[in-house]
């Protein structure tokens, strides 16, 4: 009986495990392995090069630039989209006329492909013809070039990301808000607490598990969301708006330097693991589990 349980269990998980191992775990390990080899070129096969790829990494100004960009991207998009998500959830968690329309408006960007979203935003940003310039022009201001100048390109990308993500995160906060017993806020109100105090002392702490979940998602997304860069800036000008995954793509599939691409991926994997662990411990002390 015990043995049959074993065999059945293994048979049931086997198909899923094969594909998981084949396309997630094995590639993650071969990424590390291949980062110690050179890229095969023409008739020259790849050979063991030790830490050469990592030496190159440390001396690669583009890598540091892109890593810095990704850091700013994360710092800029995560807190803002989470704050907006909470505001949105609080807004639509009350009854008023047009509530479902407003909720729909917040959520719609989530169902649009990021690549399509980028096309739409390109209209806003284009110098001269774009909506932003047309409006500024009508008010008597000169032309802008938000995507074309190194100072603003990343911020322009971030704005699109925030617009896309906030409504998605709102859903989770909305679900969490609906599970908070109304007696708690009621009690605080009777005690004479004002709206802000209730939010700060009652609602927000109860939302902490959601914030943990959402922020882990947001961190993963800050590494993963690069589709719009292809349309809006192509990483430019001068890598000002390039992110780590975009650089991995460029290195591996435009210059076909797959060994260096693997090395960059190792950095990404390490960062993801560190951040996930760090976040877990950081929040663990602050999260109030029900």
């Amino acid at each position, binding site marked *: 009986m015990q043995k049959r349980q074993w065999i059945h269990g293994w048979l049931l998980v086997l198909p899923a495990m094969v594909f998981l191992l084949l396309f997630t775990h094995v590639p993650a390990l071969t990424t590390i392995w291949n980062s110690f080899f050179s890229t095969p070129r023409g008739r020259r096969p790849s050979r063991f090069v030790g830490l050469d790829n990592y030496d190159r990494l440390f001396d690669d100004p583009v890598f540091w630039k892109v890593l810095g960009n990704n850091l700013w991207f994360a710092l800029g998009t995560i807190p803002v989209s989470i704050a907006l998500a909470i505001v949105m959830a609080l807004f639509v968690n009350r009854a008023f006329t047009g509530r479902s329309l407003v909720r729909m408006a917040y959520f719609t960007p989530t169902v649009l492909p990021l690549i399509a979203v980028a096309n739409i935003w390109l209209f806003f940003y284009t110098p001269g013809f774009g909506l932003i310039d047309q409006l500024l022009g009508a008010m008597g201001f000169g032309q802008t070039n938000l995507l074309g100048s190194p100072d603003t390109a990343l911020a322009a990308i971030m704005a699109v990301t925030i617009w896309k993500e906030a409504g998605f995160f709102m859903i989770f906060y909305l679900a969490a808000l609906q599970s908070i017993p109304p007696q708690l806020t009621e009690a605080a109100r009777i005690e004479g607490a004002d709206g802000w105090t209730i939010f700060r002392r009652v609602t927000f702490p109860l939302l902490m598990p959601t914030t943990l979940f959402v922020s882990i998602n947001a961190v993963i997304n800050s590494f993963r969301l690069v589709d719009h860069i292809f349309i809006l800036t192509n990483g430019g000008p001068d890598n000002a708006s390039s992110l780590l995954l975009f650089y991995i793509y460029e290195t*591996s599939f435009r210059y076909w330097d797959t060994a260096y691409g693997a090395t960059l991926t190792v950095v990404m994997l390490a960062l993801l693991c560190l951040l996930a662990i760090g976040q877990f411990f950081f929040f663990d002390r602050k999260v109030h589990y029900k």
Partner: protein
Amino acid sequence: MTRFDRWLANSGAILLGLLWILPLLYAIWTAVHPAEYEARFVLDAPLTLDNFAKAWAAAPFARYFLNTFTLVTAILIGQFVLCTLAAYAFARYRFAGRDVLFALVLLQLLVMPDILIVENYKMIRTLGLVDTITAIALPYIASGFGVFLLRQTFMTVPQELDDAARIEGAGTLAILWRVYVPLAKPTYLAYGLVSVSHHWNNFLWPLIVTNSVETRPVTVGLSVFSTTDSGIEWSVINAATLMTSGPLLIAFLLFQRQFVQSFMRAGIK
């Protein structure tokens, strides 16, 4: 809350909603009007479907739609089958290595195939599948998220139902099909919507493994169409953009409640 506070919050909510929907409304405006009205917002601007017709004629969108449709269907079926089997084992079977395997499943929530593009491309090349729809689907059909979600649902199914079916002589797969799957229908709907919208929108991996009209999904098709410098008008690109997001957007508007609840359900678990 005073009446003024309430009024303030409501107007804030509506203003933010308008701001959020504005880009989409603007895209719709340019797509249904002639190019001259791109930035002239007058009520008597003539409506036209020319932009859609031009976009449809300028690139093989019909083929792209067929590809995307095949892709999301294949992924959905694959995910449902593989994740159901694995989730059942993790929820109800005791076997050596179960916890280690489950940890490996959860690891995929962090290390997604999306970021392992270099090695996954090599794998697909080794399998000789470059430029096929199968290649786009393969890395995603075993989904850690799906296994986790279904396991959580299956664990809430009363063990007595399982035992009763077993006493009546039903086999493992029959029990799974007749007892567990029907009870998990809302989870399947939720997961299905999340999966379809995710893979409809996916771009980077399909961009890497496809290079022909016969395999490209709409997202890649759209980027090829809108980045070729052949003087295509904004309004036509916008029409194409709306077209590619159209089916998903319409489905979303029709099933808004289910969509929102699905994403919630998928998130809470």
